[in-house]
């Protein structure tokens, strides 16, 4: 058992034994496994990158909309401030519906983890893993002077009125449902 059969010290080159060949096959197998697992990790990382790009697309759209939506005749009108003549205030839910319905630009975004359309969720769910690759939109409201924190950040709800400028934080949930902060924009 001891030291197998590798004790030849002649000066001719010694070929590989069966044990050596078996080890090389094993080593090759381990490297293939490592490569495959690495590729899996890469794919998940790539999906996270795609999610981040979706978040960045949202950030870009919201930033542009934030500068233009107060102009007269802005379209989509659901995302513009409430008309002076209107009695029903414009809310975020209506705006979201319009911008995520085809053929709007943001309606084409796909959640790379589920291959379904990207949706907005309230928070990343690390326990149930139901929010992988989804996006979180939060509004940051200034707190009264003297508060410990300058902003109070809460989820942007469908009923939030969008008549005034809003500070929006965009976050996406990665492969492990951990939040990744994308941007803070003014809408």
């Amino acid at each position, binding site marked *: 058992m001891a*030291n*197998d059969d590798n004790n030849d010290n*002649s*000066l001719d080159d*010694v070929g590989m034994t069966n044990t050596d060949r078996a080890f090389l096959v094993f*080593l090759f197998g*381990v490297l293939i496994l490592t490569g495959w*697992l690495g590729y899996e990790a890469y794919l998940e990382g790539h999906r996270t990158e795609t999610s981040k790009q979706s978040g960045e697309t949202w950030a870009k759209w919201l930033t542009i909309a934030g500068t233009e939506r107060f102009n007269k005749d802005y379209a989509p009108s659901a995302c513009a401030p409430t008309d002076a003549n209107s009695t029903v205030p414009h809310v975020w839910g209506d705006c979201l519906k319009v911008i995520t319905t085809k053929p709007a630009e943001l309606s084409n975004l796909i959640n790379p983890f589920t291959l379904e359309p990207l949706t907005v969720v309230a928070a990343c769910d690390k326990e149930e893993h139901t929010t992988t690759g989804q996006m979180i939109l939060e509004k940051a409201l200034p707190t009264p002077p003297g508060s410990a924190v300058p902003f109070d950040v809460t989820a942007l709800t469908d009923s939030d009125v969008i008549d005034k400028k809003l500070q929006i934080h965009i976050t996406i949930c990665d492969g492990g449902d951990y939040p*990744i902060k994308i941007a803070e924009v003014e809408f």
Partner: protein
Amino acid sequence: MDVKQDDIRGKIRGHDYRAEISTDLPFRKWLHSWLFDPKIEFNYQKEVENWIALLIVVNLMALLFEQVPQIHEPHALLFHVFDIFSVIVFSIEYLMRLYVAPEDEEFNSDNKKGLAYLRYMKSPFAIVDFLSVAPFYLQAFLPIDLRMLRFLRLLRILKIFRILIPAYQQFVIANKGRTFRQKMHALVFPSEYGGSLQGLFDTFIVVWVIISVVSVVLESVVAIEYILHIQFIIIDAIAVGIFTMEYCMRLYCCVEEPGFESAVTGRFKQAKSSSSVIDFLAILPFFLEIILHHLMDLRFLRVFRLMRLLKLTRYTGATATLTKVIAREMPVLGASAFIMLLLVILTASLGYLFEHDAQPEKFDNIPQSIYWAVITLASVGYGDISPVTAGGRIMTIFLALLGIGIFAIPAALLSSAFTDQLRIERETLTNALYEMLSDGIISEEEAEIINLEAKRLHLSEEDVNRLIDKARKERELKDDVSVLPLHKIAATSEHAVEHYRILISQIRMLGIMTDRERFELVAIKNSRLSDQELDLWRQIQNNESESSSS
């Protein structure tokens, strides 16, 4: 003796030793000898190769980072300056190698300078060197696509073969006739067969440990992680692949190590060793996180990738010394820890006793007071919890003073034990020198051992010479056994015989130098010598007279 001593010192060098190359040499030969001649030991050839290799690695990393627009665009100028710097260094290297080509036997076997230049320019290494800088100059005259230019810059990595190929050739020669497993052992474990290829293997692992650890540290910086997320995943996968391969290779060929010969128990012993456990823990988080991520959240394991830093302990003797010191001082450290524990519990209890009523929210119970006790005794004093009662404050004064002494004990113990260990290791080297000097000659092998030890113990050339002098003096002292106390002489039979011979010789000398007749007269008259003693005297003197007359 002096000649022999110089010969010994010629072979043994401290870590700061440099080759002695005459300044009278022609400039080109002098330059070649100092910077490029691999046959001259202790010149700057290895340093030049290492710095060029480092520059190649940094170039490769710069090329990788250039692919990330978020990094490249804001620092484009820096990347460009670095590229120019690299090209200048590589160009100077190329021109210098070309200049000294006639001094290299490989290119100037027939003493024709012009042909030597041509032969050098046609050599594979010179072509690679040329290709690594040519695209930079070419772009000044020809419009080259940026991607093509980057691809051509990748050719710089081929320069690494200038180091790899000679090391590989040396390895093949040294391992001629050895088995596959023995060769693998020579590659991954330090041995006489490893040569510089084994050193390069170690360097490769060390570089990947550093890259991997730096990646883990940078991953915690959100802004960097956001930009380099994919790159970090790739680096981690490559690092794990390399470390896994290394781990498997070490386990497979460890049976070639003395003490690990058995196929099963030898490998099990290797797997249990601290360095193998560290190697295993360095790769484990990667596999666990990916394989089990559907079952549980193992992202916290990522921080354990920092344990890869511990892999470096294999390459330094300092940690081995520290481990020895801790193991040796463990009983004393244990006793010290016990006293500290007693003091902490006592302080926490007294703190609770004095302060509980005054500050029930801070000294709610004894376990809560332990935090305050440790912070006070260790002289940290955050100040978030402090005594307010007179009794509590008086007690704190005494305990803080006591704490300074008690908490300093382990540090002082370790410090003195560490110094002691270094002294022991130097004495061990002195003893080795003492043994090696027994024949007055230090062989090449012995010199190599001493050089390695001197390097490990960070001894300068002067330190080594001092130890040689010390060993030499001790050796000379041993030769003259008469100066040793009698019980020490008696302890060794060889010394006892030598001493007896010296004593007989001295008696003979006495007989020659003194008046024998008068000696015997005094001895008999005053009964100073017994008959037996007198007979012995006569016997020795007569033998001397007989041997002189014959």
